[in-house]
């Protein structure tokens, strides 16, 4: 039974484009999937190291811009007379460049931001995101500013022996998002389950104690930031090549808030949390849109966020997992539950 359930979901996920006719729903699935990947990466920082990064959208946006610019090419003059010209490269290389550039900025921002903690860390990360937004808005020569980078080509995948395939339609993008999502999930779950992940959880629980037993706090935090930023950058690249347009609004704080809501609602510090939260907040707009204005939708989200923090501070996934455990008083908890309980942030309350 335990194995049947994931297999069932896997089949559902893989066959959706075969029986789903509605292109709009497919579009929602793709964008939701991209945001779930971003939320998973945020969860690595927020849920496992306990650092509330509110600048996460910076990595998403940097990945999107880096990928788009690699693909479209650019011609900029730095300082005076020093020109940097880049010829367009294939979109797939853009994906890797986007991931790498986002990871590198995660390293730089992590190295700087992790000097401070708590409220100050939050404010520094917001500041970084706002600065990147203003650069994207004002460095018109590189980013086209508010005019946005347009006509970003779709990915072309080369299969040995089978030739090349360009992802023109939504179905192809859906499968790509699923593949990248599974990859991101595997990377994050392997990382969290390893010695490194235990060190991260340890320093979240008690940083002083963790450092006293020899855990190099900054090193692990920066490592988490790099992986998290790289995954977010990859998601940003998917977003750019799927929508074929990136503008500076991609850096808006509201997108970070969306990711945070997804993680908190689903359950921070659990692997399934961002997926559950992502599906809820990905599809909530579809349900609410016909009956409410956008402002009302956001009022609902904000209110929901407050309510969830009040009544389900650990999120849905830990609550659901604990429910049968409490009833049957099972002696042996599944690994996922144990992990979720270990990383339970509200123990401090």
């Amino acid at each position, binding site marked *: 039974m335990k194995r049947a359930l994931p297999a069932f979901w896997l089949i559902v996920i893989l066959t959706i484009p075969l029986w789903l006719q509605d292109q709009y729903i497919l579009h929602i699935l793709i964008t939701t999937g991209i945001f779930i990947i971003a939320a998973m990466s945020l969860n690595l920082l927020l849920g496992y190291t306990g650092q509330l990064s509110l600048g996460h959208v910076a990595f998403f946006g940097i990945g999107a811009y880096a990928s788009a610019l690699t693909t479209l090419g650019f011609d900029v003059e730095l300082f005076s007379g020093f020109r940097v010209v880049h010829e367009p490269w294939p979109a797939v290389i853009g994906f890797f460049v986007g991931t790498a550039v986002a990871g590198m900025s995660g390293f730089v921002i992590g190295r700087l931001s992790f000097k401070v903690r708590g409220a100050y860390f*939050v404010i520094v990360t917001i500041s970084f995101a706002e600065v990147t937004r203003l650069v994207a808005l004002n460095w018109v020569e590189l980013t086209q500013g508010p005019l946005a980078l347009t006509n970003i080509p779709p990915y072309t995948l080369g299969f040995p022996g089978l030739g090349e395939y360009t992802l023109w339609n939504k179905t192809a993008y859906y499968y790509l998002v699923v593949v990248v999502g599974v990859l991101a999930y595997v990377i994050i779950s392997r990382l969290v389950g390893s010695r490194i992940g235990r060190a991260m959880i340890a320093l979240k629980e008690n940083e002083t104690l963790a450092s006293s037993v020899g855990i190099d706090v900054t090193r692990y935090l920066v490592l988490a930031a790099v992986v998290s930023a790289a995954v977010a950058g990859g998601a940003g690249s998917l977003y750019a090549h799927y929508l074929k347009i990136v503008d500076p609004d991609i850096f808006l704080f509201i997108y970070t808030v969306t990711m945070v809501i997804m993680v908190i609602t689903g359950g921070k510090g659990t692997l399934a949390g961002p997926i559950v939260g992502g599906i809820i907040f990905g599809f909530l707009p579809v349900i609410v849109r016909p009956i409410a204005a956008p402002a009302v939708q956001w009022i609902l989200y904000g209110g929901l966020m407050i309510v969830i923090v009040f009544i389900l501070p650990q999120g849905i996934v830990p609550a659901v997992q604990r429910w049968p455990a409490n009833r049957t008083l099972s002696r042996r908890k599944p690994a996922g539950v144990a992990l979720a309980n270990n990383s339970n942030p509200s123990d401090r309350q």
Partner: protein
Amino acid sequence: MDQFLQHLVNAVILGGTYALLGIGLTLIFGIMRVVNFTHGELYAFGAYTVYFVAAALGLDFFLGLLVAVVAGALLGALIEITLLRPMRGADIDTVMLVMIGAWIVMQNTELLVWGGVAKAIVTPFPDSPLVIGPVSISWLRVFVLVVAFLLIIGSYLIIHRTKLGKAMRATFQDTDTAALMGVNIRGVYTATFAFGSALAAAAGALLGPVFLVTPTMGDLASLKAFAIVILGGLGNITGATIGGFILALVEEIGAGYISSGYRDAMGFLIIIVVLLFKPTGLFARAERVG
């Protein structure tokens, strides 16, 4: 040189209202340890209240200012009692999430009620500016500066000369000891949040007529207030006052001589630089209120 003088004067006028924003937030942040994302929304609320009283109802502009400050204090007290009081003792990140939720609700309520189109507030001041040598200032801006200064002085007096101010300072230094000495901590928290909110609403009410009133005007206000608090040091009113003027000056100089597009980036660069090199703020001897 003339241009520089004009920038300087603009910075002083803007700095007064920034100082109000900063003083309000530094008290809330310092005493309650709440990262208050609704601060900017109270700023926007103040501006909309003036618009409502002066433009929509057609009543007196000065009455609108007064109503904005009082309504800001009441709204602040309401937020504190309904959202923050039940969260006391929760860790700072959890409270922050609640405040982000409240911020989203407030901003979109403004959008729903007033629409997305920017509103202009008409004031009774003459259109012709006050000209002193090479510098010209509109009478409205002179008024804004004077009122901001009066409110800053008023805040000092409340913190240093009243019993409430003494209770706030005691709570900041040591909450438990203050409680043992008979300070009503719950009351101090509500009063602090209401007071800080009133100052934010006052800043919005003063700057609303200078610029335009939009539902998103609070976003940058919140972040600028954080920049000022970080610059001045937590709970430091003098620091917040000076920090407000420094931020305004840096913005004016940055916008005037570097690029107007990066005006709003200055506050964030200040946050990043100060936190990385002197996290206790520029003027901190030790953490204290006053």
